[in-house]
């Protein structure tokens, strides 16, 4: 699979991963990203996943997958034992996003975190005018059954980085609609649907 066939957020992640590096993908889903990183970057990677269906898909995708609950910590991974630790669209589902982030930086030289931006105008619009938690293609859950328990916006995440002494190396924004893809450059927190951060320890 060439980079251009990848999901847009995965394309950006792929650009941030060095060739031949060792990658840990936390909440790796079906393993598509790891598969692409292996094929395009010759990365040797491990996925961590808790969903049994996803684990089956990982096996079909020929990627290493470890069944593990990330909320219980990453103490089984040694300090600085990976070049890159990725958490794509999962940090908002964590019990303690701050602890996970600290653990990720302990395990990896650099970390890549992506999450749905709750500061996106649709979410703001929904809450402001409907008085209800937003439900959209990006956030397709009711408040009571969502796995997303710690939503944040770009600003929130960056505040956390400052508080934890984390250096933001890159920030990218993904918006799928053409209007959004244009406007995201003007006001990312309002028009970016997905946030992508590359961070390291200060």
């Amino acid at each position: 699979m060439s980079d251009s066939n990848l999901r847009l957020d995965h394309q950006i992640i792929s650009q941030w991963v060095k060739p031949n590096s060792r990658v840990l993908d936390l909440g790796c889903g079906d393993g598509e990203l790891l598969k692409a990183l292996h094929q395009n970057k010759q990365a040797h990677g491990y996925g961590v996943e808790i969903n049994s269906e996803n684990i089956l898909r990982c096996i079909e995708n020929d990627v290493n997958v470890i069944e593990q609950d990330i909320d219980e910590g990453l103490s089984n991974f040694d300090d600085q034992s990976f070049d890159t630790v990725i958490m794509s669209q999962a940090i908002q589902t964590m019990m303690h996003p701050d602890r996970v982030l600290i653990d990720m930086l302990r395990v990896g030289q650099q970390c890549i975190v992506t999450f749905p931006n709750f500061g996106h105008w649709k979410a703001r619009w929904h809450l402001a005018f409907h008085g209800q938690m937003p439900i959209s293609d990006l956030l397709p859950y009711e408040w009571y059954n969502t796995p997303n328990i710690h939503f944040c916006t770009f600003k929130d995440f960056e505040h956390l980085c400052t508080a934890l002494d984390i250096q933001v190396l890159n920030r990218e924004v993904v918006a799928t609609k053409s209007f959004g893809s244009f406007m995201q450059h003007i006001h990312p927190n309002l028009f970016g649907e997905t946030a992508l951060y590359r961070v390291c320890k200060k």
Partner: protein
Amino acid sequence: MTKPNATNSSPPAYESASSVGIVTPEVVHFDEPITLANGRILNEYQLVVETYGKLNEKASNAILICHALSGNHHAAGYHSPEDKRPGWWDAYIGPGKPIDTNKFFVVAVNNIGGCSGSTGPTSINPETGKAWGADFPNLRVRDWVHTQARLADKLGIQTWAAVVGGSLGGMQAMRWSLEYPDRVKHCVVIAAAMKLTAQNIAFNQTARQAILSDPNFFDGNYLEKDTIPAHGLSIARMIGHITYLSDDGMGKKFGRELRSGTFEQGVEEPVEFQIESYLRYQGSNFSKSFDANTYVLMTRALDYFDLAREYDDDPAKAFSHAQCKFLVVSFTSDWRFAPERSREIVNALIKADKDVVYAEIESSYGHDAFLIPNQIRYWDLFSNYMQKISVD
């Protein structure tokens, strides 16, 4: 061949499309002496073997099945149409099953030291003309691996597509990956550990003491006395059996159901719980079919096993020698070989930068879960992994 239940519309189990059917064990002789881990030499020995499926032209589709403590070569299918019970892993070996015999050539072997036909304590020692008995050499897991490698040579199998085992079988699979790294493509380790915990060794020791203290044991030379330590062996099996099940599973199956008697006040009648009679039945059956010296020998091999001992006690250093991919599976209610033990294997493999898939199967069957049929997630996972194994 006469068909039992000829009037019944459903075919007998041995004729079902998912069974390997009627199988016949073969005896394979080895004349070349083998030096065992404890320094003693077996000048000749034999292995009893069953195979299912067909070896392809390149001999690239062979799977080795390593058995656990009380297992043997009879892993799948039936020995005769009258046979009521299939091999010990019949639920997972056969056409369309996770170890699919349409794809793979499966080799199941009774280890040396066993009592199902391979050279062991009940065999005749050619040097004395008497049964080996207590004089049969102590064995280590690696001895089994070495004899299995010689078997592979005889069968024309240079490389196993996979070496697969549960429990003590999983230990053999891991040892294979280190002793013959270029002869294993995939290593499937189910409900196993890199070494036993003190608690595990304690259970084994208690079971052995039950056997050793049986007045019919005669220091292991009971065959000469024309007797067997049935009582001790039966207790040993009962102890083992309890540890292979989970509290929850045992509760669901037996609870506090009574087999006989009553707790009614004013009635002095002896009470027997279902679990008591079940354990006695299991123990008694086992003592008739299994050799006491073999039980002692196999539990000792378990206790001695320590994957990383020769690698500075560093499991990652040990696994750095492996070249194969790994599947590691554990079961949530297995307290004899708990998921933590499997995670230690996985952590070492990650540290050694080896390919590994790890899954923890939700199950209430305890350590025995790896043998239990109809566990959907276990089946799917095992099947998906085995299907991805290339045999080209």
